[in-house]
């Protein structure tokens, strides 16, 4: 049995956030690879531990090679890769939110926030931003490069 990655006090804090702020169910699609992925195991375990904190979170576990078609469908090519999506009874709602790499350090709280955001099913953006986004004529791909510290 491997050691837990999340300390108990962190689990408690995250549980408090989830219990008060999670509304609708969230699906985390985890993509790993058996080859060339130093952080896949840790990321998978981290996401499992986070998902276990609330009934509203569900994690599904995929392999980039074994589930190549699904990876293509979700535009996942980098591993470890996470898709944070809304989960309804009959479907997945893809908001285009992707994580590439282990969400550790400062990125851990950004992951928690992303789960809460998707759970709320609302971007929280201003009316002006929503209007500007609705006017977009081309797709926009935003990549936010981060480091854990």
């Amino acid at each position: 049995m491997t050691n837990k990655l999340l300390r108990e006090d962190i689990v408690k804090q995250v549980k408090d956030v989830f219990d008060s702020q999670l509304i609708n169910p969230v699906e985390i699609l985890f993509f790993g690879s058996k080859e060339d992925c130093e952080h896949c195991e840790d990321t998978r375990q981290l996401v499992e531990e986070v998902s276990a904190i609330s009934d509203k979170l569900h994690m599904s576990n995929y392999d980039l090679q074994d589930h190549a078609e699904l990876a293509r469908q979700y535009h996942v090519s980098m591993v470890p890769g996470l898709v944070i999506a809304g989960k309804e009874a009959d479907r997945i709602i893809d908001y285009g939110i992707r994580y590439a790499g282990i969400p550790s350090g400062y990125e851990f709280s950004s992951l928690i926030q992303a789960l809460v955001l998707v759970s709320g099913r609302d971007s929280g953006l201003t009316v002006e931003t929503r209007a500007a986004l609705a006017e977009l004529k081309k797709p926009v791909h935003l990549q936010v490069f981060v480091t854990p510290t």
Partner: protein
Amino acid sequence: MVEAMEFAELSDRHNVSGVPQTTINDGAGTVIGAYPEDALMQEIQTALRG
């Protein structure tokens, strides 16, 4: 989100030095640091025009 250290090649391709760096459409635009919402939206619109 892209963790820069694990994806060093991609980060180098986008000249990532300071984080957070937000790259728009593969380099059509770049924003360094945390930007307020309306400023980021403007950068997106500029990047799409170019």
